[in-house]
């Protein structure tokens, strides 16, 4: 499908046969896959975006100016802080912000934030924060990528994306939320793959009663409506009073339980087809044991399918996680995810007054889009011998 995305080949003049010895290039399969992948421009863009998101997630505590749980009691639902680039006289300046003060509009009685223009707080990079956090969980530091600091060293609040009802910085929370949102897909796949490969492999390789039994089990799994059952599982998990981390694990297991059926079926089909190939017969004739045939001859031939399946499953899992968390049936406080952050936006009134609480949704759309593009490129690349 993504052939349209590939750079159109330039029409080259046919090589002139000048009698010189021709040069032939031999390429390994890995090399060919890499070349095919590089040709898929939008897929490359998607990959770069994902890498950026991963970097943001890894350094989230450093990039986010505050601790994600810190509540600025004076700033509930503060809109994104305006970063000024021009002085009062209009000349270009280092970026700076003003402190804001919450007031009520006397006419509409709405809360508004008014800038106090007496002191300028410049955006300073690598500024010290007030609390120590542990980068990667073990490097203690208190330096943040940026903060707003005045010349006398006092600091102003800088909320790039505004705050939520409790006055927590939405930008920091989006970065922290990416931990869950980005990891949920790969982690579900790590659970689904072993189950699917073992059951699908057994089913396809041995056939007979084993096949019969596993296929019936798959059919049952496929007869369970995924989203409703996941919602019920989420409600059950929520009721147990588990820690946030356990709820996250439970959610991954729930996603894996509902997801393995279809996957095992496809693996079975692939194994069935490969089992009949000559090289498998040859391996058997050479006296290879079943386990060896499966591990050395059949599994390597389904890897390309596995990789493609993985990259194309991740976006779906991300969307499901976001939906469940949005409904309050997924990630629980104090952990958060992009979907969970959107829970604040459930009613029209809240969106109308504080539209910035919709921003986490943009993170979801961009990352899922990027994964879809990357998956598309991977699908085209793993079959590098097809000529476009």
């Amino acid at each position: 499908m993504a052939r349209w995305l590939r750079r159109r080949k330039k029409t080259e003049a046919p090589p002139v046969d000048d009698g010189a010895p021709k040069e032939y290039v031999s390429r390994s399969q890995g090399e060919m896959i890499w070349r095919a992948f590089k040709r898929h421009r939008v897929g490359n863009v998607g990959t770069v975006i994902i890498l950026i998101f991963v970097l943001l997630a890894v350094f989230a505590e450093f990039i986010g100016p505050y601790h994600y749980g810190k509540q600025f009691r004076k700033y509930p639902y503060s809109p994104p802080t305006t970063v000024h680039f021009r002085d009062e006289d209009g000349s270009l300046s280092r970026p700076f912000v003003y402190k804001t003060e919450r007031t009520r509009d006397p006419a509409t009685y709405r809360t508004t934030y008014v800038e106090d223009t007496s002191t300028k707080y410049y955006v300073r990079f690598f500024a010290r924060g007030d609390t120590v956090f542990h980068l990667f969980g073990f490097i203690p530091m208190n330096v943040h990528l940026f903060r707003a600091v005045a010349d006398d060293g006092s600091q102003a609040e800088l909320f790039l994306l505004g705050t939520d009802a409790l006055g927590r910085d939405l930008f920091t929370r989006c970065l922290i939320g990416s931990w869950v949102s980005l990891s949920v897909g790969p982690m579900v796949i790590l659970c689904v793959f072993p189950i699917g490969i073992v059951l699908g492999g057994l089913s396809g390789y041995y056939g007979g009663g084993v096949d019969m039994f596993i296929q019936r089990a798959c059919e049952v799994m496929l007869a369970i409506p995924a989203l409703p059952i996941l919602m019920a599982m989420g409600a059950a998990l929520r009721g147990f009073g588990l820690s946030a981390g356990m709820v996250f694990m439970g959610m991954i297991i729930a996603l894996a339980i509902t997801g393995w059926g279809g996957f095992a079926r496809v693996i079975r089909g692939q194994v069935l087809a490969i089992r009949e190939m000559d090289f498998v017969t040859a391996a058997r004739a050479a006296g290879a044991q079943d386990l060896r045939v499966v591990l050395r001859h059949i599994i390597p031939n389904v890897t390309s399918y596995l990789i493609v399946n993985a990259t194309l499953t991740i976006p779906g899992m991300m969307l499901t996680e976001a939906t469940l968390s949005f409904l309050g049936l997924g990630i629980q406080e104090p952990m958060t995810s992009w979907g969970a952050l959107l829970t604040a936006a459930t009613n029209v009134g809240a969106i109308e007054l504080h539209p910035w609480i919709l921003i986490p949704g943009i993170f979801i759309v961009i990352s899922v889009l990027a994964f879809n593009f990357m998956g598309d490129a991977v699908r085209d690349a793993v079959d590098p011998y097809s000529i476009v």
Partner: protein
Amino acid sequence: MLTYMVRRVLYMIPLLLIVSLIAFSLIKLMPGDYLTVARMNPMLTAESLQEQIERFGLDKPFLVQYWYWLKNVVRGDFGTSFGTRMPVFKTLFFGNRLTWTILIAATTLILTWFLAIPIGVYSATHQYKPSDHVVTFFGFLGLSIPNFFFALVILWMLVVIFRVGEYGLGVGGLLDSRFFDQPFSWAKFCNYMWHLWPIWVVIGTAGMASLIRLMRGNLLDTLSLPYVQTARSKGLRESVVIYKHAVRNAINPLVTVFGLQLPGLVGGSIVTAIVLNIPTVGRAYWSALQQQDEPVIMGGLLFFSLFLLIGNVIADFLLAWVDPRIRYD
């Protein structure tokens, strides 16, 4: 063929039984059960509580409870909701919810097919052109937006950007309050339409995106087949080649998608209906989950499962019907 169809339909029964057992165990796993909720209800007397315990065997082991539940189901009794004190399916379908659910799913299905097929054909016949790129990009975008977020964005645009409130139009729900007691009229119909289009757009885009991609891919494959070349070399007009020769064959594999989309639409509409406040079965299921209304959760899971199975059966039948090469038994 007929035996195949009968067998296929009968096979749904054991599947539904196992699904119900799984759903039942899941609900029993939930902390707090029927009795803890019922005991807190001052409306229930000790006798009626005792009667409930006996009817559902709530003091018995798990499998016995399931057996009691099954016996009641066979008699057509799915239990009574804790919240509404009405039978389960009356609660789930309360206020025409079933009608709305099916109506929304069916209309979305029709709309997506009528739009997606021509767009897919256009996209395939204009391969690599800028318009094809635009279609593909929006297809990907439609696949990547979570339904609930799309619904929220539409609400935000209607309220904040277009300020529809100033024109006397509400957002969310099925109808503006001033139409509640009115007899059916053209204005009321239009108001229904006004409240329904966001859900059509939201759950339609996701389905449409995949359908367009499928149609485009299938048609591109078909167009490269020798018989299309033959048709062209006979000197037929390009439109005849495409619509009479290629499209007819390219559409065949899509009919399976038709059956599979139906349950997807019912499931996918749950969260959208919650955001847009539209009374569907999914919404009733959601509030049952909030209240831990066990019998209704159970009924809801069975309902969605039945929908899924019916969709699968339709898909199989359609495929067998359009493709005479497929032979069973």
